[in-house]
């Protein structure tokens, strides 16, 4: 084990943030290109190892399929163009089963077994919640694509980053003025009756009312419901 290869230089959070701040449009859709700046002075043939925590099985599998496809296309494009500062990108994919416990195990594997420099790829918030603490402990920059407000709100840790994607709060707050100015002042909200829907309900209604609009009705649809049609008659006529 003592002769285990170590990358010439490990990324750390500061280097990742610096390179992101340097911009250069390097952060691709899935946050694939961190660390450009930090490596400009280093000459190494070691590949840049990126842990890809992918929803291969479980409820997120359909998303994982596309995240994988875009990741592979992106990596091929970068590597065909000579890599980053001459260093090829190597993706180490691990299935998280769309499960928080397994997610944490996978992050740990990236750090201790695969010697990855950074990790990315998680969409489902419960997996992010499960994995982020481990990423923080291991000081592994962990890029996620979940849309919940947890990352932006600072509920996790400094190593968990949310690039190139907004969260529910930002989305609905940005949308509220557009609706009040262009569509109407009286709105009925129909939302699934659990956290994701509650975020929409709370943040949108606050932002909308601040713009002078009124929420006439908040119709919560139970998560077990399979048809929305029977809820439509509940929408007030003057919506």
């Amino acid at each position, binding site marked *: 084990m003592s002769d285990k290869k170590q990358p010439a230089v490990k990324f750390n959070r500061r280097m990742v943030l610096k390179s992101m701040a340097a911009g250069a449009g390097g952060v691709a859709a899935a946050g694939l290109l961190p660390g450009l700046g930090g490596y400009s002075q280093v000459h190494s043939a070691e590949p840049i190892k990126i842990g890809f925590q*992918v929803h*291969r*099985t*479980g*409820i997120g599998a*359909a998303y994982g*399929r596309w995240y*994988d*496809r875009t990741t592979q296309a992106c990596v091929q494009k970068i590597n065909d163009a000579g890599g980053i500062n001459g260093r090829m990108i190597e993706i*180490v*994919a*691990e*299935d998280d*089963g*769309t*499960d*928080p*416990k*397994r997610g944490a*195990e996978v992050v740990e*594997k990236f750090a201790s077994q695969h010697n990855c420099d950074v990790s990315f790829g998680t969409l489902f918030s*419960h*997996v992010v919640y*499960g994995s982020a603490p481990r990423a923080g402990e291991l000081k592994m920059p962990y890029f996620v694509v979940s849309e919940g407000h947890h990352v932006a709100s600072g509920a996790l840790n400094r190593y968990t980053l949310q690039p190139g994607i907004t969260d529910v709060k930002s989305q609905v707050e940005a949308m509220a003025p557009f609706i009040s100015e262009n569509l109407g002042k009286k709105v009925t909200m129909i939302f*699934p009756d*659990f*956290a*994701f829907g509650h975020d929409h309900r709370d943040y949108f209604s606050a932002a909308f009312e601040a713009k002078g609009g009124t929420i006439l009705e908040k119709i919560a649809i139970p*998560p*077990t419901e*399979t*048809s929305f049609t029977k809820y439509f008659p509940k929408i007030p006529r003057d919506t």
Partner: protein
Amino acid sequence: MLLLPTDIYISSGVLTVVLTILALIVLPASFTSTLFTPKLLLHLKPVPGWTNRLINLLSLTTLTIVIFLLFIGFTGTHDPLRNLLPLSVWTVFWIALVSLHGVLGNVWRYINPWCGIAGQWCGKFALPDSAGCWPGLVCFLLFSSFTLADTAPEDPFRLATVVTGYLLFTLICCYLFGTNAWLARGECFSMVMQRMAAISPLGLFQGHVAAGFCGWKGLYPSTHLITVSGAVFTLALLAIGSFDGLNETFWWLQLIGINPLEFPGRSAVIFETVAGLLISALLLIICFVFCVWTGSLAANRIAGTRVSLLTASTELSIAILPIALAYHIAHYLTAFMVNIQYTVAALTDPLQNGRDLLGLGRFYVTTGFFNTQSSVRTIWLTQAASVVVGHVISILLAHRIALRLWPQPRAATVSQAPMAAFMVLYTLLGLWLLAAPRGA
């Protein structure tokens, strides 16, 4: 599936099963007897030395492939959809090969990885008769728990470890108890394959290759299939096959207090899943025995016979095998359609070093058939047809077995009344499962 008129499809499916039952009341008793009589096709002259050599060769080939796959599992990519081991185990072996046994017959008997090495082992101890098929049932329950409840059964390294462990465990048991005994009563996959093969139209009969209506081989079962433990294994096979589907529905998630739109992952429901599969096996056994009990009470009264509940239940347990196979096919059809493409992609580059052994060129896995209504309808109706056909065959087979237990046609028909109700409800359950919203 909300886009399809599944309620109409479900009603039609159930109606088909009901009509089959009604037809059996009207049709003469000789109908099922004739139906399940096999036709002898080809006389076989066994050449013992060569047959054994061929089996050894096939088995050792399988073993070599398995060892190569384990090597890939231990050392290859960690992506379960690129690593050939999980794809081979779950898609090729568990989905395809098990289903194929319903068509081809018991191929596993010849190609399993053990009989090449252990074919002649007679064992150090005799596996006691009282042990029955219970060791195999325990193995099967452990396997099902791993499949349904483990957080990462597809992780290549984890799976390679489990497969290696099972290979060695089986080899040791073959050494201890004799290969034939262990493969028939302890090795759960041989037991599953043997049961699925009982539905196959092809088989060996009186020294001939024979063909007949699906299920004819169920009339000539091996003795351990119609023991209590053998019947429990058969029923558990159906129950767990049904639970593997039920455990993803909104209904089940609600039952265990989980928001179906916010499934927390397998790690949060390990206990519920294992408990669920055990309870469903138990429930099915109770329902089945109850149906056989009430049916045989009535039949015994009419015919003045004393067919015991034990005989009736164990013999009739064979009749549910077509449903088990049908569920297996229907449940896994969509997973197969996607994952077989990943398997082909992995086969062309088994070591993930950029080779293209099959010359596929640019190969993308497509799931486009889930996006258009016409293809989804075709898929759904194929699954539904499998379930309905499975039940129809089961009813016919059960009737034929009943005629053997109670030769008087009226008694046989009456004995099947509770079972017929059970089959209709089970068809409804199966079709509902296909259409039910899923959250896990």
